[in-house]
Structures are given as C-alpha cells and as structure tokens.
C-alpha cells in the first residue's frame, strides 16, 4: 500500500509518465481481452452446437459431418511433417555442422528461407495449383496439398532446428570427435538427441500452421469432403469450415468446427509451452 502511494506521489510530478503507464495498461488489456473474447465467444457459443451426427464417419448434406475433415487434418499433418521435417532438419544440420562460416550457400539458404517464410499462403496455394494440379496434371490431390504445405512450413522447421543445434555446447562435439567418432555419429548420437526439445517445439508450431491453413489448400488439395487417397482430393478441417461458411447454410456446423479447431490450437499451444518449460529446466 505504501509503495503504491509513493508511486502515485511521484506521478503527480510526472503526469506524462502516468499517461504512458495508462496507455500500456490499456494496450495490454486490449490484447489479452480480445484473445479471451475470441476464445470465450467461440467456445461458449460453439460447444452447444456440437452434436453426435457431426462426427459421423461419412459426410452427407444431412449430417454435414466433420469427421472426414478431422481425419484428413490428421493425415495432412502427418504427411506434411513426413516431408518437411527430414528436409528441414537435414538443411539445419548442414548449416550448423558442416557449412563454413560466411559461405555463399549458407547466405543463399538463409535469404531464401526468409523469403519463403514471408510469402502469403494464397501465393503458395496458387503455386501448388500451377505446379501440381496443372503442370503435373494431377488435378486436386492430397499429395499436392501436402507438398505445398511442406514447402510452406520448411523455413519454420529449418530455423527452429538451427537454433536448437546451435544451442548444443561445442564441448559435446569436441568430446565426441576427441574419441575418434566421425561427423555422422557425433550428429546422430550426441548432437541431435540434445537438440530434440527445440526441434519438437518447431514441429509443434508447424503442426499449428498446417491445421489452420486454408488458402494454400483450397486449390491444391481441393474441397471434397471425403477421406482421400494420396492422389485424390480431400478437405481438412479449416477448409471444411470455409466451405461451410461460403455456402452460408450451415452456421451451426461452422460454430462446431470452429470449436474443434480452437481446441486443437489450444492443445498445441499448451504442448509447446510444456516443452519450452522442460527445455529451460535442463
């Protein structure tokens, strides 16, 4: 109490400081308030709209089931990670463990990765459409969508893995090389295991992007509400939601889908927070 009084006292002489303090409070309150509003609104309005027929195995215009879309989302996440994670980790290993400092290739990889991370998803979508659907004559395919998203999250995986590898102390490398181990053994037995938490947090962020992505998938994986094969079309949850909204007939289902999407995002954030905590504990 005394402390607050003292602070108020000092603000009397410095009204400008008080104004600044207020502005910061308002801004922070707004930021958090909006988040709470969005999450709260969608959960409260959405949860009553959840009904068992929305989780029926087959989609039809009666039940407007989101089950195929949920399964597709999981499949899409797996497929994208299967492509992007090995490539991203491999590239990061090259940058951190092999490349010489200031090499041209490293600079080029950095610049291009930065560029990739700035490209809007609709441009990815069109690119995927032009490359996979048109040039390869695949049409709308699950694989095309997955490849497009894999390119999209590649810079994310690359950057987080790079940071994680850099954080592994050099003494581990010296110790391993000093025992006569080669680069590969050092990388796979010593360095990568130490970097796993960092890599996983990057992967989780990547999962979040895949789950929420719509624009890059509409014209690559398409919008068919069925569980597809690799070379046929299938919609993920986010695309499903867009389809519902653009048809304008299914507000109830749209609310329910929003709830499911939001819950997934909440889980992902909680997961990455948990891993970050584990990381700092070590």
């Amino acid at each position: 109490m005394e402390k607050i009084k003292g602070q108020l006292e000092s603000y009397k002489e410095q009204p400008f400081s008080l104004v600044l303090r207020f502005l910061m409070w308002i801004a922070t309150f707004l930021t958090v308030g909006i988040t709470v509003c969005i999450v709260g609104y969608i959960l409260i309005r959405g949860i009553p709209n959840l009904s068992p027929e929305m989780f029926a195995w087959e989609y039809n215009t009666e039940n407007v089931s989101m089950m195929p879309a949920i399964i597709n989302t999981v499949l899409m996440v797996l497929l994208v990670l299967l492509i992007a994670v090995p490539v991203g980790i491999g590239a990061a290993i090259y940058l951190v463990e092999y490349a010489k400092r200031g090499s041209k290739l490293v600079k080029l990889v950095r610049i291009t990765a930065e560029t990739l991370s700035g490209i809007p998803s609709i441009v990815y979508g069109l690119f995927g459409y032009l490359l996979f659907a048109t040039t390869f004559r695949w049409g709308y395919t699950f694989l095309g969508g997955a490849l497009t998203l894999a390119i999209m999250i590649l810079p994310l995986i690359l950057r987080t893995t790079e940071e994680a590898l850099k954080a592994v102390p050099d003494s581990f490398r010296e110790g391993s090389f000093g025992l006569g181990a080669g680069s590969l053994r050092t990388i796979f037995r010593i360095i990568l295991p130490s970097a796993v938490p960092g890599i996983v947090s990057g992967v989780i962020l990547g999962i979040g992007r895949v789950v929420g992505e719509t624009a890059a998938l509409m014209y690559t994986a398409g919008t068919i509400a069925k569980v597809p094969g690799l070379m046929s079309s299938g919609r993920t949850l986010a695309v499903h939601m867009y389809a519902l909204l653009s048809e304008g007939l299914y507000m109830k289902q749209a609310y329910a889908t929003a709830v499911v999407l939001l819950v997934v995002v909440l889980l992902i954030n909680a997961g990455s927070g948990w891993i970050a905590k584990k990381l700092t504990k070590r």
Partner: protein
Amino acid sequence: MKEAREFIMKCVFILTACVSIAAVVLICIFMFANGIPAIAKIGPLNFLLGEKWKPMNNIFGILPMIVGSIYVTAGAIIIGVPIAFFASVYLAKFCNEKLYKILKPAVELMAGIPSIVYGFFGLVVIVPIMQKLMGGSGKSVLTASILLGIMILPTVIGVAESSIRAVPDSYYEGALALGATRERSVFFAVLPGAKSGILAGVILGIGRAIGETMAVIMVAGNQPVIPGNLAMGVRTLTSNIVMEMGYATDLHREALIATAVVLFVLILIINLCCSALQRRSGQ
C-alpha cells in the same frame, strides 16, 4: 565404407539445404511465367491502373484491389501498431514475472488461432456490431481493418518485445540513475535503441496484413470497386484470387495469377525492407 557413408550423408544434407533455394526459384518461375504473359496481353497499365474488374467483359483492371489491399493494410497498421507497441513495451519492461506467465501465452495463443477462425469471429461478432454502428451491410474497409489490426498484434508484439529486450540494461539503469521515472527511462533511453527492431516488426505486420486472405474475405464485402469511405465494402488482392480461381478460365484465370504476381512482388519488397532493417538492428 565408413568414409563413403560420411560423404554420402554430407551430400544428402547439402541437398536438403538446397531445397529452400529450389523452392524459391520454382515459385518465382511459376508465378512469373504464368502471370507476366497475362499482364502483357492486358497491357501493364490497363492491368495495374484499370479501375474496372469485369471478367465477363474481359476487362481486367486491378487498381480497386491494389487500393483495397493498401486501405485495409493501412487501417490495420493504424489500429494494431499503437496497441502492439504499448503492449510490447509493457511485456518487455514493466510487467512482473507472474503476470508475464499469463500474458505471454495469451499472445502466443493469438498467433496460433487459424485465420479462418478469426474470419468467422469477425463475421459473427464484428460485422453485426458495425452494421448497427454504421449501417449498411457491416462488411467494410473499417471492419476488415479492425480484424486485421487484431490479427497482426502477435506478430508485431513478438518482434518488438524481443528487440526491446535486446537493448542493454545499462541504458535503462543509466537513465534511472539520473532520476528519471521508469516510464521516462524506458521510453526515452531504451526505445530509441530498439527503433529499427520495432520498425521491422511493423513491416512484418504489414506483410501479414497484405497477405491475409481467409479472414478478410469474410468481412470485407468483396466488391471490386474503389471504396469511397470507410463504411463501404472492399476487395483485396488476396480475396480476388480466392473468390474467382475456382471457376475462372483462360485470360480470366491468367489475370488472377497475375494478381498473385503483383501480390508476390509487393511481399518481396516488404520482406527485403524487413530483413535489411533486422540486419541493421542486429549490429
């Protein structure tokens, strides 16, 4: 045998590193190769400065969309940046650790919410409010600006906060020691040191706002006309592509790809600015 394996794997790692280069090259080739011919056919001036978008009559002018993108982006910056700025200062320098553990995850959660969910929220909450306040459909430049302003908050806050934290504590302590209040010390001694970092965050936010598609499409109204005031509907470059790509053919389709090329070039320029700034603030 062992050496061979080491060598082969090294080559594999180099190849994976080259994937991102290949991706950028491919994207450039495909976008430009498919978009430039259409621009040439329509005529660069007719395309970029044409005020009418009438695909049925083969009239393709994307000026309304360019202006629309600029309007909603500017609106998002005007609404979002002040909030993000003050919030990031608070997060970096004023809030205590307990509070930070609640605030930071909230901001991170905000970054994780899918844009389609933002769009949905805008559609069912912000649009009706705007309808009551300003009349009309409620889908307007202003509505889109507000929603985008919210969406860029986590991006700008994240970059700004870390650049404020990167300023050496000695600046802050020096100012405090001269008898300045905490607020004065932070705003006049610390923030100048974080200037280019904060600016980089803003530019990153511009990039996100211009590139955002699914949220804008829900709340902007999407009329391909240059809006005369804030309450009028607007169509952005991104929504133009998504809305019509599904059924477009021939020149219409190519014109949409050309729209994406314009967007792509805009983003490349913005990214260049951003990385140049970040490099400067890194020094």
